């Protein structure tokens, strides 16, 4: 399947093979992912679509090194994630991947600026550098005038923009976004997608879960997941569009 997706993008940066995740809860086993294999190349913008409970969030968490698979391997930028120590995983979450959550997940009662500086604190970036970078990032997502606002004083769209700035704090090559527009009105959602589009244009690899076909249109490739399996994977803009038109 990976071979079929080979396009004019760079080297593979995410390689998962035979990934599965089973949750056991009081003798009841729930299969969230069943034998998922695919590849993401540097500079791609991949949309992941699928109904609720299809396992796409689970896949996203494993890709973000927030969760571990039951079986299968995940190679990130040449490193086998399954063999890394807890500290090495922390470093990956810190430097290689920026994660954007549906629920923003900002620290409440904490300013936008401080929220963006958190990953840099864990990376021991010097204070002055942190301030400079965080200010620039907030400026870039259009919140230059709100850096001292507490996160809970901001609107949903503004909070998500702070979250994107935070994901960008360590300038990671990969940005994973789990339904970043799910809690937002369409207009705000479009602004957020524009930012992701912009980041992708600058060379960041983006993997994004979305429910909205119009958002998936921004992606260069869409992966459809159902019942823990990849049911369709488009590797070109045209074929994806054809699929969407057929579905709707």
């Amino acid at each position, binding site marked *: 399947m990976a071979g079929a997706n080979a396009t004019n993008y760079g080297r593979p940066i995410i390689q998962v093979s035979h990934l599965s995740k089973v949750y056991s809860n009081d003798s009841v086993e729930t299969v969230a992912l069943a034998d998922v294999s695919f590849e993401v190349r540097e500079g791609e913008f991949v949309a992941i679509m699928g109904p609720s409970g299809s396992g796409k969030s689970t896949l996203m*968490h494993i890709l*973000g090194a*927030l*969760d*571990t698979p039951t079986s299968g391997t995940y190679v990130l930028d040449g490193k086998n994630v399954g063999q890394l120590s*807890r*500290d090495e995983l*922390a*470093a990956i*979450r*810190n*430097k290689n991947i920026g*994660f954007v*959550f549906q629920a923003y*997940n900002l*620290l409440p*009662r904490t300013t936008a600026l401080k929220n963006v500086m*958190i*990953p840099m*604190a*864990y*990376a*021991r970036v010097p204070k002055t550098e942190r301030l400079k970078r965080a200010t620039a990032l907030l400026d870039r997502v259009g919140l230059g005038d709100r850096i001292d606002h507490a996160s809970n004083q901001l609107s949903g769209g503004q909070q998500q923009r702070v979250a994107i700035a*935070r994901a960008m704090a*360590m300038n990671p090559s990969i940005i994973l976004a789990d339904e970043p527009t799910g809690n937002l009105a369409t207009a705000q959602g479009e602004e957020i997608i524009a930012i992701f589009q912009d980041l992708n244009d600058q060379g960041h690899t983006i993997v994004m879960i979305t429910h909205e076909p119009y958002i998936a249109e921004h992606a260069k490739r869409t992966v459809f997941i159902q019942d823990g399996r990849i049911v369709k994977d488009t590797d070109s803009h045209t074929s994806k569009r054809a699929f969407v038109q057929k579905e709707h």
Partner: protein
Amino acid sequence: MEFFETLTTALEALKLNKMRTALAMLGIVIGIGAVIALVSLGQASQQTVQTQIQSLGSNMLTVSPGAQNSGGIRGASGGGTTLTNDDAKAIASSTQITTVAKVSPELSRRAQIIAGRNNENAQILGATPAYADVRKVTVSSGRFLSQQDVDGMQRVAVLGPTAISNLFPSGASPIGQSIRISNISFRVIGVTTSKGGTGFMNQDDIAIIPLTTAQKLVFGVNYLGSISIEAKSADVMNQARDQVGYFLLARHKITNPYQADFSIFSQEDILGAATQVTGTFTMLLSGIATISLLVGGIGIMNVMLITVIERTREIGLRKSLGARDRDVVSQFLAEAVILTVVGGFLGMIIGVGLSYIISSLMGLPFTLSLSAVILAIGVSGAIGIVFGLYPARKAARLSPIEALRFE
């Protein structure tokens, strides 16, 4: 994260929930405060007892009539009638006894003293002039008993300052005034200088009268309550004890020293016993205080556990942003240690203040137990680490997504 930054983050987290922080700290404040106050008070009373006993005279031996065996029943120690005036005289005049400087025969009972409309129950002590030398008693006004007073069985009394203030509250000079002890009229001839002490230890609530008067007129007995002996120096105490002991055994025709009808104590014996009593008391107080400290520590652990549960999502978030296990541990540990150290410091202030107030109310000298302060601060730091470590590690071990999903 850097050390200073961890502290700042911890402080910010504590500030966000002031009420919980204050309540958690309260346990440690009370615990540390109690330890310092109780230990300081215990040491102060120990010191007081020691100085009081030492003020009685440092090279003094006390001969008490021993327990008497009558028909197999052993009577109370000190309740016997085996010491006589002749024993005292013989000790003083014996040529075999070379280490004794002064001998003071004494008979002490409690009785009612009446002076005009005032009366009180005080210690009535029959003594000779030697008492003043052996017990280091001085008079602040008037004079002490003379040999003539004793020989002539005079009805004169030297009162302690507490007795004076109870019997003559008006403040007029009591010298020459008349008082009644057991319905016998006495003339006040002197007032002793205060020796201090409170309650049962009060050496100032006393009326000293001639020994002969006490024996024949007041109490109607012919034996002695005790004989106080001053050794020539502190170095010959043991020798003096042996000499007096064997001399009295011979006088009482007792061959087996274990059947002696008297006993001899030195000040050191009494000091040792008293120090042991107050030491036990201090230990008991410290034990109670330690328990309260422990309870305070458990309170902190409780709060830290709740904090961890409450902030599980925050932990998940921080981990998803790259916090390592040790970043999470040190953040929560820093919070716990700040709680206990600040609490310990406040407790120290309260403990010192409390022991100052109580010691001034009880008339004890104010002593600050440095060891208690160091111990309390050390213990509070340790409590912070021990009771903070468990919740902190628990928080750090969570997988980021488990923590983020936590409701």
